[in-house]
């Protein structure tokens, strides 16, 4: 167990290097960010050269990467286009996005598993088709549409919530964007749970549990659900990172100054420090989430052991 965790932690090192390099190359491939700083005007060559020099852009790519990595290890993530240190941006963006992710994740997990369980246990009945219709709706309508609709009706028309998230992103303001963000994933979770529950509800051990005379509640939660959760947990685990990075649209609609927003700004302005810095942290979160998922397998299914 302990060795397994250590091995996984060690594996993170090459992934970390691989990802940062890949992202670095990608941002580099986007082209020279200096031209855009001058707006609709052609850059003055002398000023542009000076800016390139200061951003270390006048060196070959591998050197730029080494320089950047060297800086990172001293805690310097470089500066955004506005001259603000990237670490400062991270300090404000990550807590906000983390809160949004927690809200969305809770909604997705609770509602998704709940709906899936309902549909799986009541296969072929009204509840089941209701869940299907709902998940279909969520998948087929793009996030920006649900986002704008909810914002307009709940926020503007009925005035039930703030249409835009206030400074500091209080949890009460995050429920609406959380619902929007959780939408598509919720559909996945519900369908996965339903399938899994349907399959396992005919398993021998469940039959045994029922035959033993265990109360239905215990049968469903301990025996059925626990064994049905593996694919769901896999999905949820990989989705944490997706929620954090994939909130670009939701964050934009609801005025959340989080990771997705900063990342998008970084991409638009082709600012390597912002993009690479944020993605690096995101990758670390992915890795941690994946490790957690693999450990959870062992919790959910005692037959799986890691050595």
């Amino acid at each position, binding site marked *: 167990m302990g060795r397994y965790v250590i*091995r996984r932690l060690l*594996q993170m090192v*090459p*992934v970390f290097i691989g*990802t940062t390099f*890949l*992202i670095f190359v*990608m*941002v580099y491939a*986007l082209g020279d960010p200096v031209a855009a700083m001058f707006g609709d005007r052609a850059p003055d060559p002398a000023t542009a050269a000076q800016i390139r020099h200061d951003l270390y852009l006048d060196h070959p790519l591998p050197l730029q990467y080494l320089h950047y990595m060297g800086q990172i290890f001293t805690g310097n993530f470089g500066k955004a286009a506005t001259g603000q240190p990237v670490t400062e941006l991270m300090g404000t963006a990550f807590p906000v996005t983390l809160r949004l992710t927690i809200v969305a994740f809770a909604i997705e997990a609770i509602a998704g598993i709940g709906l899936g369980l309902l549909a799986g246990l009541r*296969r*072929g009945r*009204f509840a*089941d*088709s209701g869940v*299907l219709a709902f998940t*279909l*709706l969520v*998948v*087929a309508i*793009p996030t920006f*549409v649900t986002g*704008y*609709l909810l914002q307009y009706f709940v926020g503007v028309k009925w005035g039930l919530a703030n249409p835009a998230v206030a400074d500091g992103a209080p949890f009460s303001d995050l429920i609406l964007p959380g619902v929007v963000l959780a939408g*598509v994933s919720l*559909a*996945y979770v519900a*369908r*996965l749970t339903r*399938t*899994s529950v*349907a*399959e396992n509800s*005919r*398993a*021998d051990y469940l039959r045994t549990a029922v035959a033993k005379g265990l109360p239905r509640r215990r049968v469903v939660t301990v025996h059925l659900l626990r064994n049905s959760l*593996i*694919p769901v947990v*896999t*999905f949820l685990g*990989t989705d944490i*990172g*997706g929620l954090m990075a*994939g909130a*670009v*649209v939701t964050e934009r609609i609801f005025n959340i100054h989080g990771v997705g927003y900063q*990342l*998008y700004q970084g*991409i638009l302005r082709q600012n390597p420090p912002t993009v690479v810095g944020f*993605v690096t942290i*995101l*990758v670390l979160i*992915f*890795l941690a989430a*994946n490790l957690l*998922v693999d450990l959870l*397998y062992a919790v959910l*299914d005692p*037959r*799986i052991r890691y050595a």
Partner: protein
Amino acid sequence: MPDMTDSQSLVDAVPTTAAGPVDPSQQREKARSLWSDAWHDLSRKPLFYISALVIVFLVVIAIWPSLIASGDPLACDLSKSQMGPTSGHPFGFDTQGCDVYTRVVYGARASVSVGMFSTLGVTVLGSLLGGLAGYFGGWWDAILSRISDIFFGIPILLGGVVFLSVIKGGSVTTVSLFMILLGWPQIARIARGAVITAKQQDYVQAARALGAGHTRLMLRHIAPNALAPVIVVATIALGTYISLEATLSYLGVGLKPPAVSWGIDISAASEQINNAPHMLLWPAGALSVTVLAFILLGDAVRDALDPKLR
């Protein structure tokens, strides 16, 4: 042990038990292979036929859109901008004054092909790599899982803007390739998880003890049991790929004009939702029907493949 006594289709995607209980006499027929079993099972499900019909229809329309639409999707008259339905134009007009009906029909080609190619590619690549990782474990697993971590780490936005602008793409092929490139880790993770579970099952252990080789174990024993979650995710993913194509077009790196696709129209319509909801309704409706058809088909196929449910 797989439970062979139950004959009812358990995982029907829709409420009706229209499939009805399978005649017990069927069980006594001579042993069939997994696939012919599956086909036998499928052939008696109305839902399978309905969804298959819808998909065949979509494919036909994608190949010959002029069968049901006589107009030109690029013939647009700005003076008719956002007008509602009129005779000959049952779905009304979009912002540019193009006929929405014609565009929905012509949009099927790009959208359905992007959806199908991407899903197919992602499923094959993802379940192959994920399955191998889950089955062999050890170094295989470590390397493949870490590679998929790296791909997970790349934000779709960044990947899309960079990949598609660097290769100057904009065709169905390049967009699908991009989606496969960034989409496979999702299926791979799911497949890996499913294979890890299936691998531990008694019947697999039994088969192994009986001397079954890797290929036989994987194909005959593990794959059918691990396929269910993969199919579920893949069929939903098909819909998200079609919408993702919309987002990519919206960002200016997806299908390039004069391509016509539901995605392009949905992203254009979504901004106008307060002004002209009909612009959104029809392409989004077509997308929903397509996704529904594939989800139903996926459910039916999965049930048919699952020996436990027979």
